[in-house]
């Protein structure tokens, strides 16, 4: 199982006093408590088969393990960086499994779990962070767009795409197409995000804004990004907003499904705020000890999405030790294969810099390409640079 580095005990205790165990819990939709107790909610429920319930566990564990590999590979010099989703598995698996096959996803850059749930090859995330390419993929066939590194930029793309879906007449009924765009708490401060809400609202686009509020935009907390939580801001733009316990895979599933169904049937856009926590630093080279302390991490460890879910599965006899072991083995196999594939990724050829810039490359660029190729070819291989 992936684990979180345990820092040695903090010498200073001032920070530790900030977050006490009796801090008020936020208001959100929850169907499964951190202790693994099932709860009911007047508006949301999940009724899966046993198989489907077990399937969620498998998704959660494999997501966690694939993500842990990202961190490990970076530590081993195989990736330039890795933005870990540790702690956010439930938000991604819950929402990811709520998507219908005809729906389209606009990710940010931390949505490995959604990618996995869509049945897509996750190698593109690794090739991006390894630096062999820029994350290209067949966005049409996959119905999954490229990772977007400019914060909130994808919210406008998603709004336009959703407008296109409506234009195509693909909205209405159970078979309608919905579009989901993933973004973080930091993104809600960007102009593009706010403009996207305007457009989605004004054009009644079939779009779900899925905000993974993991409490931090690098080092800055929510209080720096909004006075009013994202789920309440949605109302100002003319659409419903719902906050869900992002560490509760069942609630995440239920709330996202409802939002997607609204969109696909033509009732328009909405915003889902998944209240969760980024257990690891922003990326592998961030030093999170500069802005948060061990007490806060402990608080959130107690809300771990997988522990609570496993507890519940066990309590309900939906899964046994054999099942959990089998999932661990499957995860290990996935990881092993992924590692090898990442390390086998070939370095790009110099021509790749030139060949996708334009559909119709102009003459000066073709000449430059030839120059670059000739220059490379003229160098003695293996000589020092």
């Amino acid at each position, binding site marked *: 199982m992936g684990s979180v580095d345990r820092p040695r005990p903090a010498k200073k205790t001032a920070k530790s006093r900030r977050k006490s165990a009796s801090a008020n819990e936020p208001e959100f939709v929850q169907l499964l408590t951190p202790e693994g107790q099932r709860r009911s909610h007047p508006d949301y429920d999940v009724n899966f088969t046993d198989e489907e319930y077990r399937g969620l566990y498998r998704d959660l564990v494999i997501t966690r393990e694939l993500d842990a590999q990202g961190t490990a590979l970076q530590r081993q010099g195989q990736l330039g960086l890795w933005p870990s989703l540790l702690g956010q598995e439930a938000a991604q698996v819950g929402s990811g499994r709520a998507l219908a096959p005809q729906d389209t996803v606009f990710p940010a850059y931390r949505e490995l779990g959604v990618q996995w749930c869509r049945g897509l090859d996750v190698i593109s995330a690794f090739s991006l962070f390894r630096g062999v390419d820029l994350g290209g993929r067949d966005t049409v066939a996959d119905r999954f*767009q490229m990772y977007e590194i400019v914060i909130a930029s994808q919210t406008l793309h998603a709004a336009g795409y959703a407008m296109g879906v409506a*234009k195509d007449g693909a909205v209405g009924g159970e078979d309608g197409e919905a579009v989901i765009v993933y973004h973080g708490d930091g993104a809600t401060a960007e102009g593009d995000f706010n403009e996207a809400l305007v457009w989605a609202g004004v054009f009644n686009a079939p779009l779900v804004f899925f905000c993974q509020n993991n409490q931090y935009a690098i080092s800055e907390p929510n209080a720096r990004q909004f006075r009013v939580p994202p789920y309440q801001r949605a109302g100002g733009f003319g659409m419903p907003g719902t906050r869900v316990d992002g560490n509760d895979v069942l609630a995440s599933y239920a709330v996202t499904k409802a939002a997607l169904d609204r969109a696909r049937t033509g009732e328009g856009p909405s915003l889902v705020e998944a209240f969760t926590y980024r257990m690891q630093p922003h990326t592998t080279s961030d030093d999170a000890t500069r802005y948060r302390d061990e007490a806060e991490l402990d608080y959130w460890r107690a809300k771990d999405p997988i522990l609570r879910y496993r507890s519940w599965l066990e309590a309900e006899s939906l899964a046994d030790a054999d099942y959990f072991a089998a999932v661990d083995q499957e995860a290990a196999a996935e990881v092993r294969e992924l590692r090898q594939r990442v390390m086998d990724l070939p370095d790009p050829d110099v021509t790749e810099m030139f060949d996708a810039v*334009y559909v119709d490359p102009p003459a000066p660029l073709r000449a430059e390409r030839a120059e670059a190729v000739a220059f490379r070819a003229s160098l003695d291989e293996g000589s020092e640079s």
Partner: protein
Amino acid sequence: MATMTMIKALNTGLRHILEEDDKALIMGEDVGRLGGVFRVTDALQKDFGAERVIDTPLSESGIIGTAIGLALRGYRPICEIQFDGFVYPAFDQLVSQLAKIPNRSGGRVRLPVVVRIPYGGGIGAIEHHSESPEAYFAHTAGLKVVTCADPSDAYWMIRQAAASEDPVIFFEPKRRYHAKAEVDTAAASLGLHEARVARTGTTATLIAYGPTVDVALNAAAAAAEEGLELEVVDLRSLSPIDWEPLEASLRKTGRAIVVHEAQGTLGMGSELAARLSERCFYSLEAPVLRVTGYDVPYPASRLEDDYLPNLDRVLDAVDRSLEY
């Protein structure tokens, strides 16, 4: 064949685009019911409907960002940024997204988006309505940038831009919007990225684009009375630049003068001077000179005649060139 203003030529071109391509859309502020603040999109919403000619929120980044989304969905949006000075809120979507997404995708994704921008000064306007930001976009790999100088080019180039599979920034010289000329809608005479020799000559080559082509032609006419035969080349495409006709002209005349409204430092003239000096070094009788806007923000309208390159400054530059 018909005589029409540049506005009418653009309007006609857009109309033909909408007729011929179901996926073409027009989107921008006030383009629909109003028909555009310059009437370039006049009557198009009436005839093609609000689903195809879209009045957008006042949100430039939104216009380009959603156009990208629509293009990802298979549409071919033709966006309008209402005035040059208002393109900047959309800068990130233009240079980080529109320019890069096809490259980022390794060639799997195409964004056939056109962004129309009325630009340039000489219309007595208030601040921010007379800018020439073309260099920022010509500098950005992944975009193509073109500009029409007359009604005939306006008609054909907007059609060609809409047919391009690459994103095109289409600059329209607003001070020439009401210029009239014959437009033959039967056949285009040039490709989108070809330069045109607008006037032949032997003494020196004036290189201009958009609003300054007219200035250059007038300067050439005045110079002819003094016995100087100036060649005028209309660049038409700013990215990519069509170097062949420029080089051929410079080899013939040995002297080049670039004329553009944009501020001189790091404007299009800088690239032209650098590349032509490199490629035509042995043919140069004089350095490549540039007649441009001064390196100041575009001034209050009552000073704009001093700011804008005019016939006299162009001919002074020709004189200077001849003194070498």
